[in-house]
């Protein structure tokens, strides 16, 4: 499931750091590697995992590829909707219980 992919993608501290960097703005792989002790192939691999989880997307500009957080990623939205579709009925049940206990 996509939700699982997101969790696995971000469970790795390096990938989480990469994702955090991209959350502040798009950049290419070499800019991403600055300040990180990580080889180019390793970076490519991490980016591939983030891309497969739909957390990050790439944009080709001539010879360069920029990476950015994927704002349209179905991943965010599908996961978020599924979570709160189930969340609210449970909360409203708790609200009903509270209303029964309250004084008029």
């Amino acid at each position, binding site marked *: 499931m996509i939700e699982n992919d997101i*969790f696995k993608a971000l469970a790795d501290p390096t990938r989480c750091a990469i994702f955090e960097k991209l*959350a502040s703005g798009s950049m290419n792989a070499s800019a991403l590697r600055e300040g990180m002790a990580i080889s180019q192939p390793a970076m490519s691999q991490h980016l591939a995992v983030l891309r497969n989880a739909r957390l990050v997307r790439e944009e080709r500009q001539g010879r360069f590829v920029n990476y950015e957080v994927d*704002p349209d990623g179905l991943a*965010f939205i599908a996961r978020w909707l599924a979570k709160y579709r189930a969340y609210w009925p449970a909360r409203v049940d708790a609200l009903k219980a*509270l209303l029964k206990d309250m004084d008029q």
Partner: protein
Amino acid sequence: MNDTKAQAQTKDLVQDYELDAPPEKVWRAISIPALREAWLPKGDLADAAPVSSKPGEEVRYRMREDEPPFLESIVTFQVSPNADGGTRLRIIHGLVGASLMLRMPRAANSNLRCVMRAA
């Protein structure tokens, strides 16, 4: 960056509930912090104070997920009387511009540390 594009991405979850209790009572349960806490814990809110409030009608809270990618959203509760003397509670929960709402926690002394919380 792509702010306008992200902003255009609006996904709302809208749910209606019919409650037996009268609107005034439901209003108290959703707007008084001590009562709200009994059914909507503050751990699920980014801020225990409402974003906005129209007394007796509508209150909005900012919510925040407790796991990556820590999406923030706004939930609106609308209270109105229904035909049976009870209350219609409408819950509108919107994820507006996911990238704008994205908040990653920053470690105090390192910019290369992601904080993962155990579920």
